């Protein structure tokens, strides 16, 4: 069954994070243990010998603050990747960071390796929004520290992406949010919804009945500003949906990145690995125990798929997708939802719609689709 091809290898260098965001889904984020270079080498060996590398893939350093690890570790990683990769495919690295620990040495590393190493910062908007949710363990805002790092990146002329988490608080400030990011000028802005997932057991977005309407208004205003500015600020969600509507060859019909084994592999600092949705790696479950399917020191990726646990999880996931296909109008444009969100919200994979579906796919799809239809009608009239 071993499938892939591998797109993302998500590696947890450490579960530790130097800040304590209100919505964080990661368990054990006070745990200061770190991955060893030997464990990373074992992960890389397993991946390269697996047959899963059939196109370029990216190592994503995530699930804990990656810059907590010493820079020397990543220099060793880069050397290992360069020396061991005998395939014809490129292996890139992406750091998803709060940015606070950036310094001159890090910037020099990023600049020297700009062809293969990318940085994405987590910034939630202007200071009054960011500091409302991205805080230290003492409860202080982190905006000022992050912006010092942004200044440093600008000094070194390093482009960076941004992921921003949209909470209920954000929804009242679309103009301030948009204007801030327009001035910040990231190479791409990803808007993640605050999800119920892992250790985050509630979402301010899902808590209030009126939020759907406010979220719709927020996304509509964001899309209007995105268009009015001729896409000067690249917003991931709008770009992807527009391209899907106008240019993709096919509708969603079958398995996607989070429902095909090993298009994503997530590995923790001890070498335990999971697949499908990356967030599954740290999650616990009454039914399955957890979602660790193997360990790189003991198991190949192929044999991990033969375990009873994987078979049970995967059967339930695919059953849920079939239910989506049979019952949801959005299936052709959504593909059957994301397993980790289904499980986190409903404690089951064999379910259909989630709040995540609604906020991440359905509402933005309707807004963009309506806009394109209206523009075409307008052109026809002219």
């Amino acid at each position, binding site marked *: 069954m071993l499938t892939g091809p591998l797109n993302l290898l998500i590696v947890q260098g450490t579960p530790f994070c130097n800040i304590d965001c209100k919505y964080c889904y990661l368990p054990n984020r006070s745990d200061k243990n770190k991955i060893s270079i030997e464990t990373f080498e074992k992960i890389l060996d397993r991946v390269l010998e697996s047959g899963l590398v059939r196109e370029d893939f990216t190592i994503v350093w995530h699930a804990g603050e990656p810059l907590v690890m010493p820079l020397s570790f990543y220099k060793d990683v880069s050397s290992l990747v360069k020396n061991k990769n005998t395939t014809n495919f490129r292996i890139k690295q992406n750091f998803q960071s709060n940015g606070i620990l950036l310094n001159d040495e890090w910037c020099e590393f990023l600049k020297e390796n700009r062809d293969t190493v990318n940085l994405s910062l987590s910034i939630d908007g202007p200071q009054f929004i960011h500091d409302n949710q991205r805080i230290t363990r003492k409860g202080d805002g982190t905006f000022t520290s992050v912006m010092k790092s942004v200044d440093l990146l600008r000094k070194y002329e390093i482009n960076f*992406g*941004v992921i921003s988490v949209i909470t209920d608080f954000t929804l009242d400030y679309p103009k301030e949010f948009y204007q801030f990011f327009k001035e910040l000028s990231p190479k791409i802005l990803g808007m993640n919804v605050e999800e119920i997932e892992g250790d985050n057991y509630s979402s301010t977005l899902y808590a209030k009945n009126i939020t759907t309407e406010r979220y719709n208004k927020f996304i509509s205003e964001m899309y209007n500003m995105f268009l009015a500015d001729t896409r000067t600020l690249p917003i*991931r969600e709008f770009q*992807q949906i527009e*391209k899907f509507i106008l*240019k993709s*060859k096919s*509708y969603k*019909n079958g398995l996607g990145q989070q429902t095909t084994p090993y298009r994503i592999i997530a590995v923790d600092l001890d070498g335990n690995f999971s697949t499908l949705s990356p967030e599954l790696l740290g999650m616990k479950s009454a039914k399955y125990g957890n979602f660790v399917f193997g360990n790189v020191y003991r198991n190949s990726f192929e044999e991990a798929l033969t375990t009873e646990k994987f078979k049970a999880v995967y059967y339930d996931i695919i059953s849920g997708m079939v239910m989506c296909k049979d019952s949801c109008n959005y*299936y052709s444009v959504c593909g059957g939802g994301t397993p980790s969100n289904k499980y986190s919200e409903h404690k089951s994979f064999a379910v259909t719609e989630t709040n995540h579906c609604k906020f991440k796919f359905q509402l933005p799809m309707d807004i963009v689709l309506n806009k394109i239809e209206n523009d075409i009608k307008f052109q026809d009239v002219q």
Partner: protein
Amino acid sequence: MTEVELLIEKLSEHRQSNSYVERIDAIRSSVSGEFIKVLFDAGIGQFDESWDTFENSADWDNSWDQGAPN
């Protein structure tokens, strides 16, 4: 064939026709590629050169939480 394989086969059966498929089909059939280009240049924004390389719907999935996709 295992139970999972049977379910996967069911997933890839003929395309489900519904209001979204019909609406997107209508958009695609009512405009030529050039028209879309003009529409975007003149009406709702800049045409992105990478547009033409976007050929697979699965690309929509290839963005798990990456703020800086390569």
